[in-house]
């Protein structure tokens, strides 16, 4: 534990830690995160796309000085891509060499070619083994993209922090990694998996927190433009759009307006850049024009 920063001991310390990493969290998230670290339970983060779920794991790794291992989930993700795979070409080579050496080596062959040097480690196995005695941060990203069989496999990993490789035996983590699981809720994750985790729904931030986030992440944007962008985006989230903008969109938009040298939100620059905030044609069509004009007026009078 000498290299890394020690784990936070209270909710306030967790909040501090996150803000040092440039992540402005609310107390609810800090509570879940603190408990997850203290109780060594995976943290299950659910929320709309672009609210900063993945970022939490990155900031955690950076501020605690731990290695970040990321497992991006997709449909059909299997053990050979997530946990380990045998190095088949090397194994074949070894078999050919054994053949050449004659009958005598055949008995040792089975043991030899399933040795550790023929093993290709993937993120989950790496996470259990750790590096230099430090348990890493393991980010299992967008778990909802994978399918149920993989979820079932994760149960063993997340509850006991161990993996069984038939040819080698069971590998158990000396120190359990800090696990962050994220989901965009494109399907419901099974209760059995959720039960092993602490749950937190990452919501859209309040206007005040979002202003702080914009200020921290896009420092060049002026106070007034930043405030107007946030106010406009918050208005959009109340419209029941098909895809309301997340924090990622707010930041992109602030960045885009800055590049365009905008100092204030105007009807014309909102019209030009609406595609940065809204990603569906229906939504854009609905907002462009009246709604946007009213939003700009409100944003400017408020900020």
């Amino acid at each position, binding site marked *: 534990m000498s290299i890394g920063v020690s784990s936070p001991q209270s909710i306030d310390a967790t909040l501090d830690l996150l803000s040092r990493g440039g992540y402005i969290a609310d107390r609810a998230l800090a509570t879940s995160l603190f408990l997850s670290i203290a109780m060594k339970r995976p943290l299950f983060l659910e929320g709309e796309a672009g609210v900063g779920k993945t970022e939490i794991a990155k900031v955690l790794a950076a501020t605690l000085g731990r290695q970040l291992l990321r497992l991006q989930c997709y449909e059909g993700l299997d053990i050979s891509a997530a946990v380990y795979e045998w190095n088949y070409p090397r194994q074949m080579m070894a078999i050919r060499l054994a053949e050449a050496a004659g009958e005598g080596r055949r008995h040792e062959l089975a043991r030899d070619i399933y040795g550790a040097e023929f093993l290709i480690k993937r993120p989950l196995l790496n996470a259990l083994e750790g590096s230099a005695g430090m348990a890493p941060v393991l980010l299992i990203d967008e778990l909802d993209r994978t399918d149920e069989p993989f979820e079932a496999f994760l149960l063993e990993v997340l509850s006991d922090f161990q993996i069984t490789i038939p040819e080698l035996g069971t590998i158990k983590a000396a120190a359990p990694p800090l696990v962050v699981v994220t989901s965009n809720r494109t399907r419901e994750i099974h209760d059995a998996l959720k039960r092993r985790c*602490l749950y937190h729904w990452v919501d859209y931030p309040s206007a005040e927190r979002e202003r702080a986030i914009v200020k921290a992440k896009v420092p060049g944007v002026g106070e007034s433009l930043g405030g107007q962008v946030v106010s406009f985006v918050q208005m959009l989230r109340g419209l029941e759009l098909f895809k309301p903008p997340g924090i990622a969109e707010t930041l992109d938009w602030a960045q885009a307006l800055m590049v365009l040298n905008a100092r204030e939100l105007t009807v014309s620059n909102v019209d030009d850049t609406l595609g940065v905030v809204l990603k569906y044609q229906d939504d854009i069509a609905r907002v462009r024009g009246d709604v946007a004009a009213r939003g700009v007026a409100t944003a400017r009078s408020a900020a």
Partner: protein
Amino acid sequence: MAAVASALPFNVMHFARVLRRAGLPIGPGKVIVALEALKLVSIARRDDVYWTLHSVLVDRHSQSDMFRLAFDRFWQRQQDRPDDNPLSILDQGPDHGRGDQSKPIPRRLADAFSPLASPEVGEQKEESAAPSDAVASWSADERLRHQDFETMSSDEQAEAAKLMARLRLPIPDVATRRHRVSRSGRRIDMRATLRAMVRSGGAVTLARKAPRRRHPPLVVLCDISGSMATYSRMFLRFLHALTNDRDRVHVFLFGTRLSNVTRELAHRDPDLALARVGRAVEDWGGGTRIGHTIEAFNRRWSRRVLGQGAVVVLITDGLDRDGGEGLAAEMERLHKSCRRLIWLNPLLRYAAFEPKSAGVRVMLPHVDEFRPAHNLDSLTALVVALSNRLDAGTTRQFTIANAKLS
């Protein structure tokens, strides 16, 4: 302070019991974890206790509101009478002695706080009781009618049950990205090949694998408005059988609003399941607002349940109170978000059926299959017809000429 600390386990246990009655799945394991977690935070801060219990006891976003209401009430009562036996909170009616509740408390929560001895007893009681005014008053802004499922004759039930049991869903399986061992597979299974090589000492015999096949997720949108009343009861039986027959089924009912009844239908016992559905849905036998409800589905659910190649079955007569307003765009989006859209229409039983109503005309261009579904026979026919057309998924547009089959 010692007294407070020793009361904590009791309070948490009883709080968990209240939540359980309100429908949150909380096992004893979670209570232990919650107590463990509370040791790590300062219980002097209300919000810390709140979020600590929240992160342990809640495991989906939809439970958050129920949790908040339950926590507020529980905490309030504990503060009012700190010396009371913590059990006392469970012995009072929903609004006993407190007048500051500006928002109506959801019925599930009020039930959870009420002194019924156990959920089982509550279930039976509500089943036998006629739909009361009290039930309707929980949402007075809409005219509510709870469907009476008891009136299905026993003959009807027996016949339905028999036939339902035989129905298997005809939707063809799709290839997944997982593999199984197969002699005729096109891919080489390196792992198995290597193992065989070791066993034989170097002789190469290629082991092969092929993609595993699996049924796609199924989403059912069923119309329960007045014009569909005679059919919706039958379909609910069908949907119940379906939900219990396979996984990855989501069932939504709609009239003037959309309700997800997947959890309610999942109960093994059909009568209990349908009684639960009856209580969960508030717009039985009213009008239909198809465009409005499909819009709600697209916005709130499509991205959550239409992943991984889902097939959508839409059961409605297409008679829209809004005259098809806003329907075309929403149907198009629905059609484009799923692998296949099948429309079952009970009106199609008339040979002279012609798509005259605005709703039907607007919807037809956006469905892949259009089928009659007015009795069990037609459902069986549907099963047969679809089973014979495994490749039908390639035609993404339905023509009106085909509609007059039946």
